[in-house]
């Protein structure tokens, strides 16, 4: 007996897959496709954080570091050492997972709040390494000449081609994550969020499970980071700072913590919002400092949280 919710998820997934395959044939605007590509990248990273934060109830403030590790490992291995991009992507994801495991083991023996602090520190360290280890990372000026991903002779080097790749991967990763939430593991994760002691009493090894989910979130984020590097073919450290960790956090909360679909909606909303504020604010306020954008962004978020505490996914469910 399949649960109705699982079946609904499946239909929406199939519908989305149809839209995704048809879209590049209809939409010709590079600007729009580019935007959708960034939404896709952000959504992949946000899904990882949704599993960690929305399901296991653990806050990470350093997801940008895994995004950066994914992007730079891919970039360095291909641009500097001439690896095949797919191999480099595999290595990037693996490395991020191992790093998450390494910092997760000591953290999860302690308490939940510590994860937020430790990942915050970890994010800062990774950012400074990216900026300062110039011989490897190219320093502040970055790394160029990263090859795009290719299948046979088909190179994912245009917005429309990359769109198909990133959204296909997104749907695959979304399906896997949805499966996890509707399983023994998913129940245990929700139980941790509901009450760690009661979960332990029911036999859930909460330490081990939180660690696993943290690693999964790092894997998802590194996939997004690696894709990002091969999409832009040029990277510098600035998108991998603390600001991006917060943006991901906002996507997850805004989308609706307990919903993977929410991660997708949140990624869409934040990506569009940031872009709108970037283009609209100068027109309203004249060519002033960028700080106005941040203030407006903050005000909009406060409004969202007050009027839609369950996020965009909660709104969709009510409709």
């Amino acid at each position, binding site marked *: *007996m399949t649960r109705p919710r699982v079946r609904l998820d499946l239909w929406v997934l199939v519908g989305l897959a149809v839209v995704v395959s048809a879209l590049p044939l209809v939409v010709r605007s590079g600007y729009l496709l580019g935007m959708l590509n960034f939404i896709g990248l952000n959504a992949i990273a946000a899904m990882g954080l949704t599993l960690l934060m929305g399901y296991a109830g653990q806050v990470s403030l350093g997801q940008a570091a895994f995004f950066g590790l994914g992007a730079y490992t891919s970039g360095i291995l291909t641009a500097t050492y001439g690896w095949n991009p797919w191999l480099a992507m595999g290595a990037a994801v693996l490395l991020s997972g191992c790093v998450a495991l390494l910092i997760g083991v000591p953290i999860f023996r302690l308490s939940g709040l510590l994860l937020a602090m430790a990942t915050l520190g970890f994010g800062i360290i990774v950012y400074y390494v990216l900026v300062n280890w110039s011989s490897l990372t190219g320093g502040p000026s970055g790394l160029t000449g990263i090859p795009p991903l290719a299948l046979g002779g088909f190179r994912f080097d245009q917005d429309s081609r990359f769109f198909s790749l990133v959204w296909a991967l997104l749907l695959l990763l979304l399906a*896997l*994550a949805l*499966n*996890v939430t509707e*399983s*023994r*593991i*998913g*129940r*245990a994760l*929700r*139980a941790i969020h*509901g*009450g760690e*002691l*009661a*979960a*332990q*009493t*029911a*036999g*859930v*090894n*909460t*330490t081990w499970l939180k660690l*696993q989910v943290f690693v*999964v979130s790092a894997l998802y984020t590194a996939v997004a980071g690696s894709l990002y590097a091969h999409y832009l073919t040029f990277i510098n450290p600035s998108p991998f700072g603390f600001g991006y960790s917060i943006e991901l956090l906002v996507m997850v909360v805004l989308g609706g913590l*307990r919903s993977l679909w929410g991660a997708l909606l949140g990624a869409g909303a934040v990506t569009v919002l940031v872009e709108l504020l970037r283009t609209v604010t100068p027109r309203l306020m004249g060519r002033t400092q960028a700080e106005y954008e941040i203030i407006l962004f903050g005000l909009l978020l406060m409004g969202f949280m007050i009027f839609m505490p369950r996020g965009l996914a909660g709104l969709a469910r009510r409709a």
Partner: protein
Amino acid sequence: MLEVRELSKEFGGVRAVQRVNFVVRDGQIKAMIGPNGAGKTTIFNVITGVVPPSRGLVRFNGQPLTRLKPYAIAALGIGRTFQTVQLFGEMTVLENVMLGRHLRSRAGLLASALRTASMRREEAAIRERSLEILERVSLKDKAGHVASSLPYGEQRLTEIARALAMEPVLLLLDEPAAGLNRAEKARLGGLLRRLRDRGITIFLVDHHMDLVMEISDEVLVLNYGEKIAEGAPGEVQRHAEVVAAYLGAEE
């Protein structure tokens, strides 16, 4: 089966439990009674690994429990419910009970993500078994309800059902009758006796003397963290110190 030796627990100078000794034997219903603050819940928390003891030891079938984490203790076959119901409120009644099958199933993260054939078989078995257990506590018709929407008595039963889903050998119940009406209390008594007859050992804390005296094989009385009496319900009721400390206060 369960052996508690010279158990003491202090919270910053406050002696919650002092040198308490007792055993819970296979197949019995044993009750622990005593006024509020006598240390009953503390003893439960030490047994289940929630807090470490200051001194003394707890053994389960010969194995020391005092250094194990709660989930490791659960894995040995000790299920428990809490004084204030600890359900996962946003999950359905069925999902709460299914969580109790966690230790009786093994599908990991990868198998779950891929929905392998064995994972799906296991999931179906978990669901079927959990529904059986809900039927046993007469809650099957509430399976799809969100746990927090249930009346209090049924939430208590759901928590017991979750513990039963673990198929424990020893079940610790912290005030299972609190907040139940007369009819629900009678049903609970019947359920606990049926569970004992199926071979589950039960150790409970409760304030309802009628229930405790009716179903228990043995009663342990605690006052100010110390054991003041232990024995068959009839004996304990006649014990002068008990009457003074506890029973007398109610009459």
